[in-house]
């Protein structure tokens, strides 16, 4: 990791500004942020700017990229691959984001309760968390999606249900650290309710590692969705990147670009998210900032 020379300027006092200044000096993280912004912009505006439709047959199958006027070629049914990638980016990003939200909601609630109340409640909640760590994540969500229907909300829920344990562990350990701090004792002594203590007093201080973890969660949720749809466990009425790979997989002997290109899209997106997550970690982690 590169050393960043950070000197606090007098006008940058707010912690968010401070973190942003730290983040801005991290080239890898900034590159990730720019790539990610481009992908998000592409997902929002791409379908309006590019005329191709993802489910429409437009040409002979397996036309190589650029040969017949299709920038990324056509898939095994002669559909425009670029159109599929553009439309697929929406589903991929939406599922990644919303699954990360589900993950954080479950993880933070359980971790906060465990770290706040201690004793029997903590014991029970941590046993519950360990139980979910033992479940083989992909198999379990495959079963949920296959049995309860492959709709986007169900896929999101299935991913969220199996991925929250890391967030819960992090939140709990942060709460265990924070609950002993003087300012928490002070507001406890002045009669703050448990709810207020947990979510208004303690949670803001526990946020930095949670934010980093949630950023990385978006990336792993995208990989997770890709895995599920690669296996065919996806809504057949929508295109996602993993689903393009899954449906073209049998034909890699004839042409491999229909598989490698959408995979590259997933890879670049998740890579950008990981770079941003690493940058956030450096910018928000107070231990590193003191160095």
């Amino acid at each position, binding site marked *: 990791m590169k050393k960043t020379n950070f000197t606090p300027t007098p006008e940058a006092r707010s912690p968010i500004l401070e973190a942003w200044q730290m983040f801005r000096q991290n080239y890898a993280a900034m590159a990730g942020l720019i790539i990610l912004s481009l992908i998000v912009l592409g997902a929002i505006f791409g379908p309006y700017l590019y005329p191709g439709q993802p489910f429409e047959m437009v040409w002979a199958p397996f036309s190589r990229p650029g040969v017949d006027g299709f920038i990324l070629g056509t898939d095994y049914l002669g559909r425009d691959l670029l159109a599929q990638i553009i439309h697929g980016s929406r589903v991929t990003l939406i599922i990644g984001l919303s699954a990360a939200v589900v993950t954080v909601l479950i993880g933070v609630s359980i971790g906060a309760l465990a770290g706040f109340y201690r004793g029997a409640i903590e014991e029970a909640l941590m046993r519950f968390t360990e139980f979910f760590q033992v479940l083989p994540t992909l198999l379990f969500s495959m079963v949920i999606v296959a049995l309860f229907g492959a709709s986007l909300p169900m896929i999101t829920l299935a991913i969220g249900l199996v991925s929250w344990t890391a967030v819960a562990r992090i939140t709990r350990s942060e709460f265990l650290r924070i609950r002993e701090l003087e300012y928490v004792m002070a507001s406890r002594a002045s009669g703050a309710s448990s709810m207020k203590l947990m979510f208004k007093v303690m949670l803001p201080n526990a946020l930095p590692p949670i934010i980093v973890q949630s950023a990385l969660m978006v990336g792993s949720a995208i990989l997770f969705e890709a*895995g599920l749809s*690669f296996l065919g466990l996806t809504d057949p009425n929508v295109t996602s990147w993993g689903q393009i790979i899954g449906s073209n997989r049998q034909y890699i002997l004839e042409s491999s670009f229909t598989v490698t290109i959408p995979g590259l899209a*997933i890879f670049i997106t998740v890579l950008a998210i990981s770079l941003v997550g690493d940058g956030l970690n450096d910018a928000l982690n107070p231990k590193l900032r003191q160095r």
Partner: protein
Amino acid sequence: MAIFRVLATRLVYATALLLAVLVLNFTLIHLAPGDVADTIAQSMGGADAEILAQIRADYGLDQPFLLQLGAYMSRVLQFDLGYSYFYAMPVTDLILQRLPATLLLVFTAQFLAMIIGVVLGVISARRPNGAMSHFVTFFALFGYSAPVFWTGILLLIGFSLKIQWFPVAGMRDVTVIGGVWTHFWDVLRHLVLPVVTLSSIFIALYSRLSRATMMETLSSDYVRTAKSKGLSQYSVVYKHALKNALSPVITLAGLQFSAVVSGAVLVETVFAWPGLGTLAFQSIIARDTPTILGILFFSALMVIIGNLLTDFALRLVDPRIRGKQ
């Protein structure tokens, strides 16, 4: 002996976890929309109401939920996981047939990932700004971000289709005739690409963590003392520092077991590896509930055993936690 007491509590706890997994899975499948009797009837080519009722009675599907759950649990405790509708054979036999392939894949990948990850981490920690260190950082990012099935397909295209070094699919070549060693060699050749694919994610994780902990350890006081005593570089790094840097990696590896099993499902699908992953995939598509339940049970068992092994590895490496519960 403290170690036996620890072992006993662990075993009791693991059994409780497994039972909880069983209850959850069974409940989940029971809650799912759709009728199992319908699925069975479908595989017979359809049936009228009378035969449907007969099927329900045969499989105990007309019983109340709690009775069904109780019956299932007591059968599982006798190592009977039921009868597969789809494969028309006992689920236990079916799984035991496929289990060795998955165990081979999962444990080889995990073992390889730990060794390579730690070695890469140590090398790059010794020269944090060297070329090797940058390579490890880059490789770690790749391993994090690439979908494992895509990595597998890339390796398949590269090393089985373009350069034909390794077989495309499966675990054995049926045309291979010969002694034990010929077959061993054959399985090994089939194993290379799936193991490399699966371990790539975890090499990334372990190398990054061991790089970080090793850098911390190398700057600690006791390492400086060892150096100033005049111990050789090798002895300081690999005998003194490594032992301490190893325990976080082992802890992480334990937490990753369920991810390894998940990754194995995808890798097995890509390489048509005849393990539990491909069986899971087929039985989920066929809605073969006894098989699905059996696989969920066995994979949880695998994760729990992996965790127990990790725990013991940790105790071997780190004397500080040997006495603790």
